[in-house]
């Protein structure tokens, strides 16, 4: 048997109690679109699955005290169709609208995408650029972790789903001078993993023509989703111009370290990283109020 027992819980406390009693033999399941296949293939083990997808406190998107909060069991469909997110984080709506297929998006969750820890997890790339914080609870208490600290290798998360539950993902709601964008390169428009994906979140000062705050995230160009810190520095080092763009894109070329895989070769990915960063930057700048060619 792939798993011996399956429990559906109504609250986070109930789930934590079960996980505690199972001493590592239990595992949290939400949408299960990745986990079911991994359990069938023997890549992950669990004697009992604890299903948190119907816990109401884990579902939904709210705007409180300048923060956008997303319950970890919110599905990709719910995120991509949320008008609150289209306004405040178009990069995240766009990222979630490109995951898998409609069937996968209807059941797969953002919390699951994080825990699954793929180097090019679309929602994670967008959340990394949004500087999101994940709230994780276990029997030992609650911790708020920056999303960038949750990955230690391809498919390896520091969240231990035999005892931890991701409850919420939050980030600052964007102001009118800010913009975010997400671009993805893949072989097909659906049902296809990304060859590369890139998310950008920035703040624009139109008085001084300068990018005052910038985060660029990219995958899969390292064993985990990463920020391009050097590229960010280059973009914010001077007043913005196409010359500055060219210099910064060269930094991006140096900063990424993709590998060759069936989806794309190292050299191709390395070149295309520049193209994707450029597209995402131009889109985010436009949203933030930058006037092209002024």
């Amino acid at each position, binding site marked *: *048997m792939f*798993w011996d027992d399956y429990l*559906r819980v109504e609250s986070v406390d109930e789930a934590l109690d079960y996980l505690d009693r199972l001493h590592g033999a239990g595992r949290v399941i939400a949408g299960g*679109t990745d986990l079911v296949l991994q359990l069938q293939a023997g890549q992950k083990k669990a004697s009992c699955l604890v299903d948190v997808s119907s816990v109401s406190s884990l579902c939904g998107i709210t705007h409180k005290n300048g923060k956008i909060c997303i319950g970890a069991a919110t599905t990709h*469909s719910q995120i991509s169709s949320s008008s609150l997110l289209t306004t405040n984080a178009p990069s995240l709506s766009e990222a979630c609208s490109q995951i*898998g*297929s409609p*069937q996968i998006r*209807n*059941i797969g969750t953002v919390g699951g995408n994080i825990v699954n820890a793929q180097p090019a997890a679309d929602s994670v790339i967008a959340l990394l650029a949004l500087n999101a914080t994940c709230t994780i609870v276990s029997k030992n208490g609650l911790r708020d972790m920056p999303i960038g600290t949750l990955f230690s290798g391809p498919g390896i998360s520091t969240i231990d789903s035999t005892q931890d539950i991701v409850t919420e993902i939050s980030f600052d709601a964007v102001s009118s001078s800010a913009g975010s964008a997400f671009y993805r390169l893949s072989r097909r428009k659906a049902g296809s993993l990304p060859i590369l994906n890139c998310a950008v979140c920035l703040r624009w000062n139109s008085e001084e023509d300068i990018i005052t705050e910038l985060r660029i995230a990219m995958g899969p160009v390292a064993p985990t989703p990463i920020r391009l810190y050097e590229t960010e520095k280059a973009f914010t080092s001077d007043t913005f111009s196409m010359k500055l763009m060219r210099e910064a894109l060269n930094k991006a070329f140096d900063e990424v370290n993709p590998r060759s895989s069936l989806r794309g070769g190292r050299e191709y990915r390395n070149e295309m990283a520049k193209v994707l960063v450029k597209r995402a930057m131009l889109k985010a700048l436009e949203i933030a109020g930058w006037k092209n060619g002024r």
Partner: protein
Amino acid sequence: MVDKSKKTIRVKVNGAEHTVSIRPDRLLLDMLREDLGLTGTKRGCGNGKCGTCSIIMDGKLVDSCLVPAMKADGSEILTVEGLAGEGDLHPIQEAFLEKGAVQCGFCTPGMLLAAKSLLDENPDPSIERIKEAISGNLCRCTGYTKIIEAIESVSKGDETGQRT
């Protein structure tokens, strides 16, 4: 004798209530096909790529090959067998026949449900929206043009009941 390794779940499938005793690691697809005998839902790739196992669970289109049966406890499910009424095909089924949108037929159950899921939410979708709605369903015969035409004809309210 009661098998303690089995769980009892209740589901409403195509309007009928069922109580099923099932091993907790069975998938919804297998429960539908093997326990309820509803073999209209097909197994294709078995890993959520091809969409031929698509069903509508509580109003949402999902791949039943990725859904543990236990997740369906208490839910309402529509499979291809539940589309037609007494003696009448569903307008989407009529449109598929009218437009020749069925070739080998293996993808058809999933395509029909993807189309229903779209039209329930948006009765007048654009071609782009139709393409997106069936983007999780592969047709090995590559008969997409006719499938898209069929879905469009339902949304336009074309006379689909008059096959010749």
